[in-house]
């Protein structure tokens, strides 16, 4: 018998009669819904998504789909169980009324909730010039529809594709272009591909992979303008080094923007960084006070991570979305003592230029790198990232079967550099600077200001940016 029959009764009633709304109908939203039913939640469940499609898998979009192996519509996520939900697809959430506990929809509907799961994720950053944005032949990649359009464009065998931005997605798309025998130019502002997540040492290796595959890789340049023909189709790109490039297809791969606009005015700790939450997936309000009924999962969630000095981090990886959603679901139907933390060990992968890249931890948290196993020259190696004498991340190129070893070291905050392997030790196994970009570059304008002087009146205020 519980010593708190009243509270237990509340939990039972909530599980039977509560109303849960999930905003976001992608991986985190779907897995969260399934987990809620697994947890014995039998109340009403509503899933809201701005896309008309049922939840689908995104990683294949930049790989198998663009290559033409799999139609864009064929990556639906497997359903792990029946969820008996009210699906509101194709209608975006436009607002959150916390006083009345309602999600406001684009069509004017209001959906009441007792508990809310925010899983609205990210979208791709649009081309910066609104006029040029209208050009035909200019694409971004995030959704299944995006992938279908780019696949069409690749299939028409353009004379040259320009990829702007050499992060993981941009690099994967360039790889697909080469597989399809398309001429492709990649323009990257920094010194090499993948520098943001993996640093300059790995970036140089990625650059060589691209060039060896026949990619016209141009680093240290920005694309300043796009020029169209009379039909409004993109034909040329103006680079910051003065080059004018003839192109028929441009894919802007400029990173992502978090879908937080609908939360404006809801007084949550939301902004360009996502929605801040605790390790139990509960959202913080604008003052940094934890909320009771609003939970966050997926790419949009930013929580303190025990392994990384408790810094708030958004872990934008597939398994973090799944595990975060499951933890959020669990905590939505449990009370304090039954709750559990979401403490993901970040894991990610990419496939490009015939190389399987797999990583663990947060490599960019480190400042040093050491090659630990294999051969860089043969593109089969493992490398560890360190900070302050401990391992914080690891990356493998065609060496993914070793990843578990590094994951374990990271979980235990093991010393950096790790002891030399018993065999297959790389030619250069001395730690060196990982060459990450300087973090002191300004990242954006603050959206929140502190107001009030009296302790009782002191609080944060949301200042929407002029749009």
């Amino acid at each position, binding site marked *: 018998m519980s010593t708190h029959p009243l509270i237990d009764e509340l939990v039972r009633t909530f599980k039977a009669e509560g109303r849960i709304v999930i905003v976001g109908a992608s991986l985190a939203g779907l897995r969260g819904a399934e987990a809620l039913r697994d947890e014995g939640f039998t109340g009403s469940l509503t899933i809201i998504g701005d896309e008309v499609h049922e939840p689908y898998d995104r990683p294949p979009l930049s790989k198998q789909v663009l290559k033409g192996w799999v139609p864009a519509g064929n990556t639906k996520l497997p359903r792990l169980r029946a969820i008996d939900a009210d699906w509101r697809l194709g209608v975006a959430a436009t607002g959150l009324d916390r006083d009345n506990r309602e999600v406001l929809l684009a069509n004017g509907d209001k959906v009441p909730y007792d508990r809310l799961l925010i899983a609205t994720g990210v979208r791709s950053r649009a081309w910066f010039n609104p006029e040029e944005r209208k050009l035909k032949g200019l694409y971004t990649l995030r959704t299944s529809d995006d992938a279908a359009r780019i696949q069409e464009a690749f299939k028409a065998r353009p004379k040259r594709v320009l990829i702007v931005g050499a992060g993981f997605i941009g690099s994967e798309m360039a790889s697909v272009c080469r597989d399809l025998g398309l001429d492709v130019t990649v323009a990257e502002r920094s010194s090499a591909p993948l520098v943001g997540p993996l640093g300059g040492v790995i970036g140089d290796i990625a650059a060589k992979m691209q060039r060896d595959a026949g990619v016209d890789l141009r680093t240290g340049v920005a694309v300043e303008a796009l020029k169209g023909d009379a039909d409004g189709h993109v034909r040329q790109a103006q680079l910051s080094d003065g080059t004018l490039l003839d192109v028929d297809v441009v894919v802007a791969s400029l990173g992502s923007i978090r879908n937080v606009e609908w939360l404006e005015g809801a007084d949550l700790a939301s902004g360009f960084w996502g929605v801040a939450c605790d390790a139990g997936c509960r959202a913080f309000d604008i003052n940094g006070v934890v909320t009771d009924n609003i939970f966050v999962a997926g790419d949009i969630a930013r929580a303190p991570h025990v392994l990384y000095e408790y810094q708030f981090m958004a872990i934008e990886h597939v398994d973090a979305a799944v595990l975060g959603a499951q933890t959020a679901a669990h905590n939505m139907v449990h009370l304090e003592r039954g709750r559990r933390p979401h403490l993901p060990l970040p894991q990610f992968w990419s496939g490009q230029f015939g190389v399987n890249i797999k990583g663990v931890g947060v490599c960019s948290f480190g400042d040093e790198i050491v090659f630990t196993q294999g051969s860089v020259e043969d593109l089969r190696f493992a490398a560890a990232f360190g900070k302050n004498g401990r391992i914080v991340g690891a990356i493998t190129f065609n060496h993914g079967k070793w*990843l578990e070893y590094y994951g374990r070291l990271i979980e235990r905050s093991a010393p950096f550099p790790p002891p030399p392997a*018993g065999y297959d030790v790389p030619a250069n196994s001395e730690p060196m600077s990982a060459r990450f970009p300087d973090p002191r570059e300004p990242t954006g304008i603050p959206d929140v200001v502190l107001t009030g002087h009296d302790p009782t009146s002191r609080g944060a205020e949301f200042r929407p940016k002029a749009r």
Partner: protein
Amino acid sequence: MTTAETAWTEAMKYENRHDPYRFFDELRKTPVVQVADRVYVVTGYRELLQLAHDPHVSSDISKSPISAQPAHTKPDVGAEHMTAYGREPSLIVSDPAKHDKQRRQVMRHFAPPHSPDVIPNMAADIQKLCNDSLDGIKAGIKGPGGGTFDVVDDYAYPVPVAVICQILGVPLKDEPTFHGWIFDFMAGADMGPDAKTDEGQARLAKGKESTAALTAYMRDLIEGFLSEPQDSVLSKLVNDKDGPDGPMTPKEAAANALLLLIAGHDSTVNTIAHCVLTLLRNPESIELLHEKPELIPKAIEEVLRLQSAVQFFPSRSVTADIAVGGTVIPAGSAVHLLYGAANRDPKRFPEPEKFDIQRPDNQHVGWGRGVHSCVGGPLARLEVNIALETFLRRVENPRLVVDPPPYRVNQVFRGPLHLDVSFDRITD
């Protein structure tokens, strides 16, 4: 002797071959424990996973203290036999980068992405071989009242051996010859106390002789492929001019050919036999599979958990001190990863002794883990699936004649020597 040493000796004794697991349970009280001078065994699931991925655990048999001991005192003649997969070490007893290169060279002609059709293309032949075996048994029945057959010799063995011969390009007509050699090789590799008996010594001597014959046979076969290339894995292995790693040297190819021939059928035989044995010990599971044949793949994985086809592989040693499961394994020690024991770790598998076809989250280590995980897994899965499905569909009312059945000598490649099953009828 310590308790662990005694448990290990008992587990390796022939008389306990049908059930080493109770001794593994005893060993697991210390998940990583010393069982002999410079020999450690790992019985805990988490501990095994940690070591299977640690680059300070070497599979290079020449680094193992076991291979350094003089022959007459060797507790572990198995290891020597493993080396004798040809004079060159094969990939299973090698470390990266050599292992990785050889594995790439093999996989190129055997599996995706370069050879995606080799395994699926065997499905029709496997089905036919299974049916032919049962047809042969059926034809041999005299009069009414059903009959009896040996699942090992009459069913589980003929199918995989024919399949691997076809894939590798080993003439099936030579099977009667190399069958005996492989049997001797396996019987000679006794890691237990029985090896010290006169019979054990005789088996060892015979095993050495047969291994030499096998090695010579493989060398000749490979030589033949060099002058007359064929459409088979072994021939392509030594004639590959297009791959990034080039052709394998004839010596390396002979070593790996021996490995692929033996590992390519022997564990499959044991798994098919253990599948039948386990199902017949749990008749309600047969009903379940008749109702839901789509559960057969899960049933096979559960059998592999309970009766891991390779119980451990005795070539590993540690290149540095490793702290694991509360024990420090000193650098240079041999370490046996006991898959069959880790698969019954109650900390990982609730009610580990229970045969539960629908066991959730059955991430057993029966295929190994890390860079040495089973090369032939996809082929074995296909073979065992078809063999088991066909057995369940065609053999009416099968019953065990002897339980436990007699086992083979070998501890590593552990399986029944014979498995007699009686039945009412074999349907068409």
